[in-house]
């Protein structure tokens, strides 16, 4: 590695953006090159000072309220008669469905929508300070026994650190008025909550992604368990997480 390359890559090393192989190469260069070692030390020092300083700005409250006011449905915009009438129209459509006997299907979907909304709320609650984990550990053999006796199911706890999803712990949560297990992972700074509950159905239900309030939720069913993975990471990354989790779970069962 040349010094020119090292002078660029040392920043990626500082930012923890290098894979293990490149990180070793840069470290080896720095160890053998006093000039690059000095630059690395100086940049690390600058980074430390910058991290200790608040360089962010806070948006003025007036800006926040101007933006709020510009959104449809804000306080400043009253519902008109037409939207009220539209509400009535929808009400009668639901009644018509009820009369025709399709109501069971409608309710079932409502049920799923309600549970999805509860899952997303539980995810949001977990992001508030101090609510993320009841047991903090990156070790699956610590997290898994912690759930024993607390739930009517044993949530599978699988370490996916090598696959890029770090296990950070577990938590008890409540969804649909029942205690439920949440296994917590991190992808970079993003939290992924994996909620696990028991179900009477043992059939495999393939994963399906839904979006609510800007969060992606991927749900599937396997071996008598329902899973919901919720995060603000992209749908493709969340799908990757679920794929890796399922593959590891399959390997565990067969192994």
């Amino acid at each position, binding site marked *: 590695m040349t010094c*020119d390359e090292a*002078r*660029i*890559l*040392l*920043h*990626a090393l500082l*930012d923890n*953006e290098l894979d293990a192989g490149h990180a070793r190469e840069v470290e080896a260069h720095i160890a053998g090159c006093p*000039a690059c070692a*000095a*630059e690395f*030390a*100086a*940049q690390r*020092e*600058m*980074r430390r*000072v*910058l991290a*200790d*300083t*608040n*360089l*962010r*700005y*806070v*948006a*003025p409250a007036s*800006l*926040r309220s*101007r*933006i*709020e006011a*510009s*959104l*449809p*449905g*804000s306080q400043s*915009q009253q519902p*008109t008669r*037409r*939207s009220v009438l*539209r*509400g009535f129209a*929808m009400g009668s459509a639901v009644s018509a469905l009820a009369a025709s006997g399709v109501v069971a299907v409608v309710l079932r979907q409502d049920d799923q929508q309600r549970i999805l909304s509860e899952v997303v709320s539980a995810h949001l609650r977990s992001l508030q300070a101090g609510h993320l984990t009841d047991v903090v550990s990156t070790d699956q053999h610590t997290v898994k026994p912690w759930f024993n006796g607390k739930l009517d199911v044993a949530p599978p706890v699988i370490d996916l650190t090598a696959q890029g999803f770090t296990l950070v712990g577990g938590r008890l949560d409540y969804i649909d008025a029942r205690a439920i297990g949440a296994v917590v992972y991190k992808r*970079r*700074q*993003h939290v992924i909550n994996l909620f696990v509950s028991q179900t009477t159905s043992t059939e495999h239900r393939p994963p399906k992604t839904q979006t*609510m*309030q*800007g969060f*992606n939720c991927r749900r599937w069913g396997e071996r008598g368990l329902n899973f919901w993975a919720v995060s*603000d*990471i*992209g*749908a*493709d*990354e969340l799908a990757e997480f679920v794929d890796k989790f399922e593959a590891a779970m399959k390997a565990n069962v067969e192994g």
Partner: protein
Amino acid sequence: MPAIDDLQKARRFREAALPYLDDVYTLARYLLRDASDAEDAVQECYLRALKHFDSYRGPAMKPWLFAILRNVCNAEHARRAHRPSAIEDAPGAAEQTPLWQETGASPESEVLRSRDAGSIRKLIDALAEPFKETFVLREINNLSYREIAEAVGAPIGTVMSRLARARAMLRAAWTAEEEQAK
């Protein structure tokens, strides 16, 4: 009259995008260096984001908002024709800045003294584009390299070299000021 769909969309948008208001405003302040221009740009950014929220499919909200803000700021820079500081990819003089200077100073003398936020902000403000933008996205807005690449529409290699130059320039300016202060 907002339809029910619009109301739901607005609610989802509010919950997804408004938590990043301070982040977007911070980037706007650094890009435009003016509080009231920054406010206008942020409001325009949120209006455009709401308009395109239907087509938003991720990957993450923050880089997406930043990409929109960046377009708004570019338009603002174009409007300020007399201030040639548009964020563009053309290599300027700054691109020629060496990645390091051989000062010959001993490592002890290179330890930077802590500064107040105001003077550090001034040093960052003085960085040339596109280096400042990359620096702020990484160091202040905490984006990963991949997210920065998405937000600015440049390859990751470009992001890395810009960041290295930005930090080299910042440190050079910082130590130069300290030399003067002595």
